[in-house]
């Protein structure tokens, strides 16, 4: 493998990995506060890309770009919060009841079907705000670098949020002990809805910033969902550091697999990695081992 090939696989792998890491973090926020895995995350990511397609002009314009980013983020914050209401409404316990599995998947199906009704299986192409960057003579879409920066940004912001804000602290409390949090007078439902909303913000910015390199069409959401979730399980469900590391691993390894073994075996190799990690460390790389059971 020559140096330019290595560079290409690393840079693009990390860029793709940033998308998976961001999806992983959006899973985490919700799962830590309510035990629910939002299976609409992939479709929501694509939805943000579709919105970007409609808003962004063909020629780069920073003002419009920033306004659009804020607008789409606001839209998805509201939309995903509402989805949270629908998901939490019939639920008494996310452990004993699995209705959330269906409700989140149903939202995903509805979003995909809606996009399909509008655009068929059209691939939505979104122009890049920055020109491509040359890495070892190979032209690399700048969106990959923006995505990496975005992943770091959200990692830091969510960490700060959990440690410094009241809502964030309450969220951490719920994650550690739901019953104790209830006793302490935390309004659990409200916090859970905020968590849904924040996961919407993460997905909106990811879909928007990554739009030039994300495959935006009616049926591509499920692929991102699975890759993001795989990355998260490898890194450790519930851990944002795990999501970052898992995302990078899955991104680079699937790029490498496509290069070395062929595109057919991309999934097989990623799944092999997942199974290997789970067998050696069932809680994932950065997952917390279960506390004493007896």
């Amino acid at each position, binding site marked *: 493998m020559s140096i330019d090939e290595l560079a290409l696989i690393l840079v693009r792998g990390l860029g793709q990995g940033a998308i998976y890491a961001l999806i992983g973090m959006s899973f985490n926020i919700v799962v830590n506060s309510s035990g629910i*895995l939002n299976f609409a995350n992939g479709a929501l990511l694509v939805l943000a890309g579709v919105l970007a397609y409609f808003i962004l002009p063909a020629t780069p314009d920073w003002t419009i770009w920033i306004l659009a980013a804020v607008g789409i983020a606001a839209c998805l914050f509201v939309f995903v919060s509402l989805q949270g209401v*629908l998901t939490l*409404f*019939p*639920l*008494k316990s996310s452990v004993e*009841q*699995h*209705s959330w*599995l*269906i*409700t989140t*998947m*149903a*939202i*995903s*199906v*509805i979003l*995909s*079907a*809606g996009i*399909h*009704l509008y655009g068929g299986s059209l691939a939505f192409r979104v122009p890049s705000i920055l020109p491509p960057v040359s890495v070892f003579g190979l032209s690399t879409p700048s969106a990959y670098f923006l995505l990496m920066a975005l992943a770091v940004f959200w990692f830091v912001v969510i960490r700060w949020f959990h440690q410094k804000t009241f809502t964030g602290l309450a969220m951490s409390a719920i994650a550690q002990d739901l019953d104790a949090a209830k006793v302490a007078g935390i309004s659990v439902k409200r916090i859970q809805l905020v968590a849904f909303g924040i996961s919407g913000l993460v997905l909106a910015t990811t879909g928007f910033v990554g739009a030039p390199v994300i495959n935006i069409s009616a049926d591509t959401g499920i692929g991102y969902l*699975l890759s993001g*979730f*795989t990355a998260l*399980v490898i890194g450790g*469900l519930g851990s944002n550091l795990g999501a970052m590391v898992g995302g990078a691993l899955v991104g680079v390894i699937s790029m490498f697999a496509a290069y070395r073994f062929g595109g*057919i075996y991309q*999934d*097989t190799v990623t*799944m092999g990695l*997942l*199974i290997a990690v*789970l*067998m050696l460390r*069932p809680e994932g790389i950065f997952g917390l081992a279960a506390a004493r*059971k*007896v």
Partner: protein
Amino acid sequence: MSQDIALDTASTPPAASQRLKLPSSVWLGILAIAASILVPGALGNQYWTYTFTLVTLYIVVAIMQNMLISEAGQMSFGQGAVFGIAAVTAAVMTGLHGQPFWLSAIGGVGAGLVLGALFAAPALRVQGYYLGFVTLSAALVFPQLLIAFDSITGGVNGVPAFVMSLATPVYGSITPLSILAVLFAAFALLFHAVLPHTVLGRRMIIVSNSPEAAQALGIHPGTIRSIAFLIAAFGTAIAGVLYVPLVGFVGPTAFRVDFSIFFFLAVIVGGQGKLLGPIIGVWLLHLVPNVFLADFSHYRLLIYGVVALAVMLAFPDGVVGTLSKWITSRRSGSEKVTVSLHDALRKDDELAASPAPRPEDGAALIEVREARKSFGNAVALGGASLSVKEGTIHGLVGPNGSGKTSMLNTISGFMPLDSGKVELFGRNVTRLAPWRRTRMGVGRTFQTPRIFDRLSIWENVQIGREGFGRAGGENGLAKLGSLAARWRRQDPSLLPHGQRRLLEILRVMESDARVILLDEPAGGLSPEERADLAYLLVYFRDKLGKTILLVEHDLRMVWNVADEITVMETGTVAASGMPEEIKSNPKVRALFTGGGDA
């Protein structure tokens, strides 16, 4: 099953015979399935006969999935791959190699069982959604592998396979195959109805609810999980084999990952753990999009999504689950449920009259030496030693966090030691798995009682005998048998916390464990119940020769019943000896005066 019979003869009056009464929903389900295939079949409607025969095969897979989720507690998203590998194997054998169908069917089921066994392997290591994801991976990769190995599987263009003998109508459009499907589904449904009332079914429920409790009952969770996966694979593979003559063609895109997820969702939508759940779930999820919405191809997915969402909002426990909850809640005045030791042992037992001779210096049945265990910086055990003599009640006391429960866990095997040694019955068991120690004759209870709400109160006691593999027989509380008839119908979820604790104690007493470890058995009990408990402990020591290690905060009770007492402090033993000797120990005095409950 032999244990059930042994139990009947040993302790149950003939009046309360244990004949299993199947819920009427089983017969309703069988009737619905039979009607769905045979009515259009008799009328000669090929389309509906075909559709419902296919749907019935899916129902069987969903029933197996339901069993996996509800009884065995295993998340598998890969059942479609088991179905697929059975179908592909059978189709390749008949369609490409001209083998007779019966032989191909055996081959298909064999292939399904192999994949089922492969799914069971990760289940020994990971659980919950993690296991779901491992099996999902297999389902995701399965069709790709079918295409990659096209020289064996027929590749992307699939394999045509016809079995005329099964597909030729015998009346109207009823084929031998559709009759087979009805019988097979009826069998699967009956199996699922009977399973929870068998030893295997109860063990599955125990393992899925509390692997620790299972180990404490001498059950190896991995074995039970593997059996569950193999049973599920068996049923699923038969359905997969029957798919071949029905469809007449097997191609890789039929077994994509959504096919596997479909069965899981069907169980959730229908109602997890409900007998009729899979039928309703498969009907809804297959017929709505593929039959009723067939003419709305553009809006099919959208409507499907909205319907699924609406169903789950209206029926959060699944259609059958929520409906049956609603019906139960409308039935008024449920019976008040209590478990009382008082009933279990009337004091007319001649205990006080003739105390059994007990060995003053019996052999040490439990011997822990220099046990050390730490979690990072936190020291659970810092070189603690303990010796419990045969036929004694040994009290283990100390403040919270002093290592009492850690000591119990070390003895029963739940906490492997960093260093030190554990001997049971004179044998070094330091590296032995908990369930093996149980089988040597060690029973225990937990601080949070492991009571299984899916089982009746009686079954919750009964599993104590079954787990060990031998019936309690005359060793048990003979009086308990008279309560069986009442307890068999009662639901333990209505019991208060303290009573759940008693139930667990009765369970461990019913097993023929010679050594019994009790973790705070008196917590949550009333003074009268505590007195009964103390009486029971003495009864077991004196009448049945059991050895009891008792962790308890109620020091008064410990002092009254214990032959020896060990005091723990910060992971080490502070004092040990006869109650009279211990009393003078200053550390113990501090314990007494330190806090009422300490």
